[in-house]
């Protein structure tokens, strides 16, 4: 009896974002992450910045796919929307700290505009529709009519912002710390959203749409809003990655990016908040690792690593962590 009640409450707890991380643990984690700005340099710091940017996008995708049950193979498109919005705005001399929320808002509008008609589509059909998005957007970015804004195939070059108020930080360090700040902010927003009544409604729709609707949840509103919020997260992630790379071009946002994002969600753990960090690490480092292991067939190595990970942890890294926690709880 004891065992079953523990298991039940823990499986319930998997969905709740706040159970895994106490405020103290989060503070320690953030402190470690911030100190990285002084230990790491150059390329490593750039990689760390990218991991954070991907993590934000993965949180967004997980809100949609993991918590709301709508599959998306097209989040690379919203990632690109954010990146390009930032680049174009900065070209118009909008400061970066203002351009990032605007980029997020633009992505949100784009996500809502896509999510609303896509309400009718489910499962595979939604997968195709979103996949279309990820195929179409790079082509549109290259299209000659939009060239004055998007720069066509050549893309747009950005300038990394310097630290304000004469703080003694290099622009790499500042860019990393700034990204870290935004990441913490976005994770907090996501956690509060998931744990709120709105979050419960979003999850209820995933578990049983009809039952949720009969409880008075307006599923059309919630589903398209989730699409919008999810796209906003992806857009902010994309904007931050553009700031780190200092360059946007259509070829950085191919359909492979969208697929990687989905893979990142699966590796981190579907329907978990903190899994995004592990997923982002996977997206950033496993392709490089595969390249190191075998130059000729790097992608075969990537595929094998991916399949082995899914075999070892069908519910992702967070699924494994949660299972270990449950088993220790049961033992005690």
């Amino acid at each position, binding site marked *: 009896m004891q065992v079953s009640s523990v298991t039940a409450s823990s499986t319930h707890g998997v969905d709740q974002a706040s159970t895994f991380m106490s405020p103290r643990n989060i503070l320690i984690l953030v402190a470690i992450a911030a100190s990285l700005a002084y230990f790491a340099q150059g390329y490593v710091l750039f990689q760390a910045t990218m991991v954070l940017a991907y993590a934000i996008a993965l949180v967004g995708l997980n809100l949609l*796919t993991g918590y709301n049950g709508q599959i998306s193979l097209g989040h690379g498109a919203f990632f690109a929307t954010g990146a390009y919005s930032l680049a174009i705005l900065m070209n118009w001399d909008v400061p970066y700290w203002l351009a990032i929320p605007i980029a997020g808002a633009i992505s949100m509008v784009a996500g809502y505009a896509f999510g609303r008609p896509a309400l009718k589509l489910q499962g595979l059909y939604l997968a*195709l*529709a979103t996949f279309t998005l990820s195929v179409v957007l790079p082509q549109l970015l290259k299209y000659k009519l939009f060239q004055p804004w998007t720069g066509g195939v050549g893309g747009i070059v950005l300038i990394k912002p310097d630290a304000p108020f004469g703080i003694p930080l290099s622009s790499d360090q500042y860019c990393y710390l700034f990204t870290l700040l935004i990441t913490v902010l976005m994770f907090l927003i996501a956690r509060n959203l998931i744990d709120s009544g709105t979050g419960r409604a979003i999850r209820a729709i995933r578990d049983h749409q009809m039952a949720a609707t009969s409880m008075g949840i307006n599923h059309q509103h919630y589903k398209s809003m989730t699409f919008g919020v999810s796209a906003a997260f992806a857009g902010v992630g994309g904007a931050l990655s553009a700031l780190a790379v200092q360059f946007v071009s259509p070829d950085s946002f191919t359909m492979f990016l969208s697929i990687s994002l989905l893979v990142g969600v699966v590796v981190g753990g579907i329907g978990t908040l903190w899994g995004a960090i592990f997923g982002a690490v996977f997206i950033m480092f496993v392709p490089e690792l595969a390249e190191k292991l075998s130059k000729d067939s790097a992608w075969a190595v*990537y*595929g094998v690593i991916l399949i082995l990970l899914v075999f070892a942890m069908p519910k992702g890294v967070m699924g494994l962590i949660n299972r270990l926690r449950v088993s220790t709880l049961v033992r005690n």
Partner: protein
Amino acid sequence: METLIQQVTVGLASGGIYACLALALVMIYQATHHVNFAQGEMAMFSTFVAWALIQAGLDYWPAFFITVVGSFIASAAIEFAIIRPLHKAPELSVVAVFIGLLVIFHSVAGWIFGTEIREFPSPFPKDAWFGGSLMSPHQVGTIFVAMCIVAGLFAFFQHTTLGLTMRAAAQNPGSSRLLGISVGRMLMLGWGLAGAIGAVAGMMVAPFVFLDPGMMTGVLIYAFAGALIGGIDNPVGAIVGGFLVGVLENLLGTYVVGTDLKLTAALVLIVSVLIVRPAGLLGRRTVQRV
């Protein structure tokens, strides 16, 4: 007017290929309720095997049959070794495994057979009687082969006990198991069939698009779109959808948007159709009992 007819026939010819592969997707969906994203790459790999056999000195038809049988066995083995252990995993994890398979086949094909573009022979002679001024014999032959496969599969799934058993295993695994059906074996069979059909599709496509590791990517997107626009649970729909996508793609590319945005326009149109008819043109709406 003449260009229009020509573009329609060219569209029909590529549509035949999309239809063939769309059919493979629908079959595996009917038999397993999964959509295998790696299907196109598996077909590409089979085609490379056929090519290697022909290079080794075999005639076309023996190579063809060895490849089809080999693909059947290999696909069934993949189901047994990789997909079956994951039957309890979340659906998205299985999708991730499909993506893994896709990159593995793609990369290994490039590694073993090289990435240069090769020619693949057509089984139909260039001056056969069924070729005309609008369609080459190979195009006519491809459409004929697609028709034969769909007729055969239709007969198999509708009129044989084994076909019925396979559909039952996919639609309602629990009840099927209670009736004594070995669901695992049926799924394996479904995968094998899909692999074999994919191999045929690959060998039919290769003379058009030439043989290289990336040959199936675009084709697969169109085939998937064709399968969905026809209705994912309907083999006839897959054929209709495949041809429709082929024709649409060509007409839009020629008359409306130009080749730059051909793929874009076709996909946007398909999604718009789906928003009006969410289950596809010939698909059944699923009604859920609560």
